[in-house]
């Protein structure tokens, strides 16, 4: 009898998934990609590689804490190791889904904490091919999302979702996201400009389970027009470490605690 019920539920599941709208799928995807755990920590090594193969390295510890429910407010804390001229720099973002972030930066050279203007979430993150939005998420409500088709990425079954910005002021025309049917991680994203030219491509290159959470620990963003790409490795990724709320404050921007940033 028990087994019978499980079979019925299992049979219903694909139908349930089919019933997702594009927007709901993107919400699920964002939850899986940017919200897992109460908190998160990783040592992020970004290699900025130009078309001739020359590399620059940006290395930081990234800490994230969710304030409440999935899709809600988040706080980010970053501590930079490399390059040498930004070593010991820290950076804090208070992220709100429906309005502009608050951002602060600590500049060790002059020992000063500065609030910085941040209305442009589409600008480059530390000079890489990733934007702030690529690192910490784009507001779901900014785009219309439609499930276009289903397709495999490697051996993974994916939904392909087309997202078109609602506002005319966006810098891109539309994008496609390949969302893994099983774990909702975005495995690939293709951005098109307003003329329909494919100019940016994201790939999740390696997914592994950390504390039971499927996590993209290697990611690449490639600019197809310039040939420049950024490879990001999320080393020592961990979840639910019990990061205190007080970390996300001016006090610790000025004196980042070793136990969190190392």
């Amino acid at each position, binding site marked *: 009898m028990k087994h019978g019920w499980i079979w019925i539920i299992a049979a219903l599941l694909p139908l349930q998934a089919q019933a997702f709208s594009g927007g709901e799928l993107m919400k699920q995807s964002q939850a899986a990609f940017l919200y897992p755990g109460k908190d998160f920590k990783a040592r992020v090594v970004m290699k900025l590689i130009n078309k001739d193969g020359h590399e620059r390295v940006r290395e930081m510890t990234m800490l994230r804490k969710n304030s409440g429910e999935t899709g809600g407010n988040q706080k980010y804390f970053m501590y930079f190791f490399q390059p040498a*001229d930004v070593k010991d720099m820290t950076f804090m973002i208070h992220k709100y889904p429906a309005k502009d972030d608050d951002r602060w930066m600590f500049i060790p050279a002059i020992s000063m904490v500065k609030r*910085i203007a941040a209305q442009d979430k589409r600008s480059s993150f530390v000079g890489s091919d990733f934007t702030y939005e690529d690192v910490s998420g784009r507001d779901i409500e900014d785009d219309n999302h439609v499930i276009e088709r289903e397709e495999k990425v490697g051996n993974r079954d994916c939904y392909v979702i087309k997202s078109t910005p609602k506002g005319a002021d966006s810098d891109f025309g539309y994008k496609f996201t390949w969302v893994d049917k099983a774990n909702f991680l975005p495995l690939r994203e293709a951005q098109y400009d307003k003329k329909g030219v494919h100019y940016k491509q994201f790939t999740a290159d390696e997914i592994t389970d950390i504390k039971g959470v499927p996590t993209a620990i290697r990611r690449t963003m490639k600019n197809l027009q310039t040939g420049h790409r950024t490879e990001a490795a999320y080393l020592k990724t961990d979840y639910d470490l019990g990061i205190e709320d007080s970390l996300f404050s001016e006090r610790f921007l000025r004196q980042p605690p*070793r136990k969190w940033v190392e």
Partner: protein
Amino acid sequence: MLSRPLLFAVLLLTPPTVRAEVTLSGFMQQNTAFNTVAANPDGRHYKWQEERAQIKLDATEGDWRLLAKGDLAYDHLGRQDESELREGYIDYTSGNWDLRLGRQIITWGLGDLVFVNDFFPKDHEALFSGRPLEYLKRGVDALKLGAYPEFASFELVLTPNFRDSRIPDANRFRLYDPMSTVVNRETVKPEQGDVALRAYRDIAGFDAALYLYRGFQRTPSMRPDNMTAPTRITYFYPKLAIYGASLSGRAGDGVLSLEAAYYDSPDDRAGNDFTVPNSQTRLLVGYQIQPLEDVSLGFQYYAEAMHNYGAYLAALPAGFPPDKRWSHTVTARLTQFYLHQTLRLSAYASYNASNGDHFMNPELRYSFTDKLWGAVGANLFGGNPWGQFGQLARDDNAYLQVRYEF
């Protein structure tokens, strides 16, 4: 105060604390600034010409941290060997309080090269000689206590020995001197230290802070022994108390900064001693936006209002140029990044509408690799012959900085 041998002793003694996490880093640097208008008062053609090395040691064990940053430099313009402990302190961090003891660089307030609530010593010579920005600040030998209860954060800085700001060297810069014929000069430094307090918290999404300072003016005043036939000039640091506040937060698409402070001059409250600055009110409004990707624009309006202006005018000896009651300054800064933020163009301009004083600092900085960067820039001054920047009108210079970090 802390010497080179002590720094090396610190460096040598640290490794045995085996369990501590220790990192060593540093840089080597060449820094040259040459005159573009006229030679120095001493006849040289350079404002700055030196090779410099810095070693930084950072050790952490549990709640303790030791940081030491020491510089060795060779100056080609007569100062020869220079060594300096830039910073050297011990931190202890507890749950909701901490302390930092030793030489430390502290910056408070919100201004961009305009100081309302940043009471700590500066190095104006470094700014005007094309040195890297970090040399704008001088460390203080102090105890800083931090307390962080739920309702607000507090920092108290106790400095037993007063440290002044460094003003440009008269051999290298043309400083306005109303009594230039008097050669017999002495400097008297305060024998006491100073105290600074800052309390801050979030108020409705704005960063709000209150500031208190009790100490001395960081730049000296001059007093002649005799007004009509002076034979000796004494440089001294008048008492100063500051009561200030600041607020910063998002406004429109940018960040708005507001600062105000009352500068109380206890040695001359009436305003009739012309050698001591009168009490003042300082106001700052700043706004920063990011109009395009990798572009940042900052604007500031800064005002100083002299109190008891009538008494000041009445006491000012004949032949001394009077300051205005109100001093209005506007500044603008453009920062733009190129080539994946490895090339940075920045330009800062300041104009004082009350006396015509102006200052410009354009700079181009490029990171050749992740460890090697270079910058070229210029310092351009002008305006009133006795103004802060106007007196330096013939001291314009262009500079070069190259640094290898390891």
